[in-house]
């Protein structure tokens, strides 16, 4: 017999989502008059007036239709962010963009938002975190935290037991296991003292693989990083993904998708749309929970800068991701957490034999494909001496400043790099 009683699970869902606005609202200043909108003189007064209208929307009764103010703030400031180089863009416009994201996310949480709406709001927050500047005591971070908890509470049972790729990928040339010759192997050292590391490797600019230095990381112990764990902590978060075989290719591009989508389509399965790589992204600023799982290597204290000056990047992707041979302007500790990576290293003294690109954009990148060099175009490449290795989980590779490096993942892989000076 038909019943007009709603099934218990969806009643629970409705109750949970109705709390969303209340929790979001509690993150905002109690009164509109306590919500400042103060900007430098570069920000058009007309736009500040629009922001005031968007702010008002958060404090009065919800209107049936979505008003355009948040989007205007976003669109206007987004255009400003695209003018000039990233460095030049006034911090003020990045703040404005963050406010736009706050208004947009807040607007999406009015009334009784569906889980889809809440996911959109999280995405709006992530755009603000990725491209905006911190505002209102890092309110976007707190908002993401609140919304994530709401999503978690109403999510159906996950059927994600998958660590293995669901779709059997055809074996590509790029999946070949490299053969490392003993003579060219990077040296390995188990927990050297600071002094030993400094004198034997840092000062002499010698690469070395440090073993045993990450055993205490929660990423290896209490919160062992697995696909399921990453989904739980950051699955709904929007991240930048590089699509295309390598960044020197014409079809290379960047896209913004959720970590869940990245895992589903580029890590576990394949749509035939090419490789996807979550590369060179400061994921640990965006997802503070993951930052708790790693530690800055002690050896970084031998550097000049403060801890805040250290850039920590995530490198997460399927087997076969390639970083073409290139050099970076800082010292690098590359910590391998999940899976193995093949690394080839060349000293900066060999630069002329590595045929760097002429253009300013790519002058730190070699034209040579390390594992398939064109001997006709690049004859001197084959005579350049090198070192190479296979990084295992738990290894930390020291790449001295300006040392050329080429990296290919041999498995589903997650590495963390620390750039320091």
């Amino acid at each position: 017999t038909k019943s007009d009683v709603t099934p218990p699970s969806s009643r629970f869902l409705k109750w949970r989502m109705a709390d969303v606005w209340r929790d979001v609202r509690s993150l905002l200043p109690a009164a509109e008059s306590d919500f400042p909108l103060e900007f430098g003189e570069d920000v058009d007064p007309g736009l500040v007036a629009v922001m005031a209208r968007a702010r008002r929307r958060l404090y009065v009764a919800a209107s049936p239709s979505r008003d355009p103010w948040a989007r205007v703030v976003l669109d206007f400031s987004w255009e400003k962010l695209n003018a000039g180089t990233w460095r030049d863009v006034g911090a003020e416009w990045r703040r404005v963009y963050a406010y736009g994201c706050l208004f947009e996310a807040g607007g999406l949480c009015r009334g009784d938002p569906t889980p889809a709406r809440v996911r959109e709001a999280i995405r709006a927050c992530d755009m603000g975190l990725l491209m905006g500047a911190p505002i209102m005591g890092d309110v976007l971070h707190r908002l993401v935290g609140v919304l994530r908890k709401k999503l978690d509470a109403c999510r159906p049972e996950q059927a994600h037991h998958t660590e293995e790729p669901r779709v059997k990928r055809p074996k590509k040339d790029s999946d070949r296991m490299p053969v490392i010759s003993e003579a060219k192997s990077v040296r390995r050292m188990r927990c050297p003292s600071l002094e030993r590391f400094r004198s034997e490797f840092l000062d002499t600019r010698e690469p070395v693989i440090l073993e045993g230095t990450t055993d205490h990381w929660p990423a290896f112990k209490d919160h062992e990083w697995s696909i399921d764990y990453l989904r739980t902590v950051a699955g709904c978060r929007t991240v930048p993904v590089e699509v295309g075989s390598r960044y020197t290719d014409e079809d290379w591009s960047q896209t913004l998708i959720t970590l869940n989508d990245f895992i589903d389509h580029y890590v576990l399965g394949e749509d035939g749309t090419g490789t996807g790589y979550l590369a060179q992204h400061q994921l640990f600023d965006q997802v503070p929970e993951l930052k708790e799982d790693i530690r800055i290597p002690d050896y970084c204290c031998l550097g000049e800068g403060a801890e805040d000056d250290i850039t920590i990047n995530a490198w997460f992707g399927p087997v076969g991701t390639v970083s073409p041979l290139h050099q970076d302007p800082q010292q690098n500790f590359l910590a391998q957490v999940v899976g193995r990576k093949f690394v080839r290293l060349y000293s900066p003294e060999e630069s002329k034999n590595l045929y760097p690109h002429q253009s300013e954009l790519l002058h730190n990148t070699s034209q040579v494909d390390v594992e398939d060099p064109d001997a006709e175009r690049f004859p001197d490449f084959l005579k350049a001496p090198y070192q190479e290795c296979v990084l295992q989980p738990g290894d930390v590779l020291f790449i001295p400043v300006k040392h050329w490096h080429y990296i290919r993942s041999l498995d589903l892989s997650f590495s963390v790099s620390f750039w320091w000076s």
Partner: protein
Amino acid sequence: SSPQTICIGFGSGDCGGQGLSVSLPLVSEGYVASKPPLFRSLAPHLRAVSLALGTEHALLLTADGTIYTWGRGSHGQLGHGLLSPEEEPRALEALWGVPMSSVAAGGWHSACISAGGDLYVWGWNESGQLGLPSRGLKKDLTRAATGELNASKIFQSSHGVFISIQAFPALLDIPQVSEICKVSCGSRHTAAVTGTGDLYTWGWGEYGQLGQGGTCSSDQAERVDFFSSRGLHVEDVTCGQWNTFAFARPEPSCKRIYT
């Protein structure tokens, strides 16, 4: 409030002899920011005909039909095949030999019309403002259609050739259009008037600037049927940042301005 008088002068700080006294009704909280113009002489061999200004770049058309560009080039808007800036006007070599009759500059893109009525475009294409296939657009269209981000559709539609930056001029061929008479560029959209009095628009449409009745963006030039369906002959078009103004005349009599 009663109109206030503003004194606008050039060259000197006061209104002295060079000044021009203008009565402007100021709205409350309105303001006029006046800075004296900067004077920069062009190289003597450049006989300037017209100048178009984008957000970060400039195009100059000279008497012999050559185009010079300068400014920031990060989105390919200078047309020299690079992403680097140019501090001095630099001739657009890719178009040498084809005399141009007009130039237009948008936020981060450029357009010009040849003496023969062909339209060339270059620069940023993230919203389809060049009329070339735009990847970002395909994703947004999919998103709008399904109501939320449908990841699998996005990945499938990522196939094909997409252009996000066109650093050299490209000839834009619009089906069934043989001659372009006017072109204007907004922040991220473009509008063009044909020899037969039709208006075509393409690019970013979020604020209705394409005049197609909705807020969709388009990476293909589409005719604005509003005019053709009312027997209106479009004669000129000019784009603001996020809007478009067309000048049209109903056959045969009076003129009206439509925005």
